C-alpha cells in the first residue's frame, strides 16, 4: 500500500513539474495581433475578353460581376516562444453584394489556421498563412472552397502604418472560377490591398499597441475579370513585449551580458 502511495506521489510531483513547464512556456509566449474592420468597393477595369495571359482551362461565361461591395473584418495573430517568429492564425469574414447582370448577396469566409509570422521592429510583421476560404455570390458566382496563400505585411512608423496583404487562391469546384487570375497563372484568383493608416502608437500599457483609420487601394482578379477599388477601414494592432530567450541571446554577435531574458526596446 505504501508503495502505491509513493508511486502516486511521485507521479503527482512529475505531473506538477510538467504543468510547471507548461506554465513557463505560457509565460514566454509572445507575438502580435491585428484587427481590421473594413469596407471595400471594387469595380471592373478589365473584362475577360481583354484579359491576356494564361488561357483559361474552362471557358468563362464573360463578365458576371460589374461591382462588388464587401464589409467585414480580418483578425490575425501570431504567437510563439521566439521574439521574432511565431505560429500564425487568421480569420477573415466579409459580406456584401455584387452588382451587374447578376446582382446578389456575396460572402467570403476565410480561416487560416496554418502559418508563420515574422516580427521585425516592435510592431511590424510579415505573416504567411493558409487554410480555406469559402466564397460565392448568389446568382453570380458559384460557391467554392479555395486553398489560399495569404501574405500580410504591416510596417509601423509610429503615427503612420503600412498595411498590405495579398492572397492567391486555388479553387476546388466551381469550374467557371478556375484560371481566373491572369497575373498569377499558378492560381485561380487573386486579392490584394495596399493601404496607409494614420493614427496612433501607444506604449502606455508596457507593450506596443496602436490604432487608426486607413485608406487603401484594393485589387482583385476573379473569373477572368480584373477589379480595382477603394478600401476604407479601421485598424487596431497590439503585440507583446519582445523578450529574447537564451538561445537567441547567444546567437547575438557581441552579447554584453549573458542572462536569461533581455527586453528589446
Amino acid at each position, binding site marked *: 500500500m505504501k508503495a502505491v502511495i509513493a508511486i502516486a506521489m511521485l507521479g503527482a510531483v512529475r505531473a506538477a513539474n510538467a504543468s510547471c513547464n507548461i506554465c513557463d512556456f505560457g509565460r514566454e509566449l509572445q507575438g502580435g495581433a491585428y484587427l481590421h*474592420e473594413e469596407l471595400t468597393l471594387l469595380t471592373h477595369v478589365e473584362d475577360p475578353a481583354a484579359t491576356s495571359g494564361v488561357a483559361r482551362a474552362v471557358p468563362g461565361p464573360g463578365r458576371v460581376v460589374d461591382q462588388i461591395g464587401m464589409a467585414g473584418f480580418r483578425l490575425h495573430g501570431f504567437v510563439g516562444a521566439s521574439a521574432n517568429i511565431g505560429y500564425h492564425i487568421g480569420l477573415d*469574414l466579409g*459580406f456584401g453584394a455584387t452588382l451587374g447582370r447578376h446582382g446578389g448577396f456575396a460572402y467570403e469566409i476565410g480561416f487560416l489556421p496554418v502559418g508563420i509570422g515574422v516580427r521585425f521592429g516592435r510592431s511590424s510583421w510579415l505573416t504567411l498563412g493558409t487554410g480555406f476560404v469559402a466564397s460565392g455570390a448568389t446568382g453570380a458566382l458559384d460557391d467554392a472552397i479555395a486553398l489560399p496563400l495569404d501574405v500580410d505585411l504591416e510596417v509601423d512608423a509610429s503615427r503612420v502604418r503600412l498595411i498590405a496583404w495579398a492572397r492567391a487562391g486555388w479553387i476546388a469546384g466551381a469550374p467557371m472560377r478556375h484560371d481566373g487570375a491572369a497575373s498569377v497563372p499558378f492560381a485561380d484568383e487573386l486579392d490584394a490591398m495596399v493601404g496607409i493608416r494614420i*493614427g*496612433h502608437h501607444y506604449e502606455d500599457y508596457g507593450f506596443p499597441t496602436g*490604432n487608426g*483609420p486607413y485608406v487603401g487601394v484594393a485589387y482583385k482578379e476573379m473569373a477572368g475579370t480584373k477589379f480595382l477599388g477603394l478600401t*476604407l477601414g479601421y485598424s*487596431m494592432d497590439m503585440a507583446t513585449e519582445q523578450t529574447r530567450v537564451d538561445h537567441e541571446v547567444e546567437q547575438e554577435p557581441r552579447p554584453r551580458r549573458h542572462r536569461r531574458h533581455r527586453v528589446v526596446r
Partner: protein
Amino acid sequence: MRWIFGCLLAGCAALPRSLEMPANDETTVALLTGSLGHPMDGIARHPWFAVRKKGEKEWRIYEVGGGGEEGDPFRHHDPYLNPQVEHLWRGDEGDQAAACIERYAPGVKDYIEDHYIFYPGPNSNTFGDVVLRRCGLHASLPSTAVGKDWRGWFGGGVTSEGTGVQIETPVIGLKVGLKEGVEVHVIGLSFGIDLWPPAIIVPWGSGRLGFADR
C-alpha cells in the same frame, strides 16, 4: 480639404450635439456614450443614461458596471473617454423618460450583469438598447456600440428608434427603417446607409461618415 479627408478617414459626424450640461429648470434625461480606452477607443463605445430631476444638481447614472451620482457626466465619466450626447429628453418627455428608466433600468442592468458577455453580448450596449425599447425612447446607439443589436441567437422586432424593424443573429443581421436607414450587421459590426441625416454607417470612429444622428 484636409478636414474632409480627415473626416473620411476617421469616421466623423458633422454637427454633433453640444456637451454643455443643460440647466436644471426641468427634468432631463440624457443618453451618452463614451469610448473605451485605447487601442479600442475607435471601435467600441459604452452607453449610460444620466437622469436629473427638476431642481436637482446631481445626475443619477444608469449603466452596466457602474452607477451612482455624478456632477457632470457630460464631460467626465471615468474610465470612458470622448463623451458624446446621443439624445436628450426634457420637460414632459424628460419626466416620462426618467420615471420609466428608474422603473426598468435596474432590473435590466441586473439581468445583463448576471449574463454579461463582453462580445458579442449581452453587454452594456445591449442594456442601452433594451432600456430604449422598453421605455419607448426613440433614439439609437451609435454603430460602434457593439452589442446594441444583440437579440440572442436569433431574434428580431421593432428598432429602438421605433420607425424600423430588425432581424438579428450573432453572425449577421439587418436593420431597415425610415430613420434608421439600412444597416447590415456582420458579427456585431454595423455597415450601412442612413438617409436622414445623410451618412454612411461604419463601425469605427463616431460610427458615421456624414452628419450626426439627431
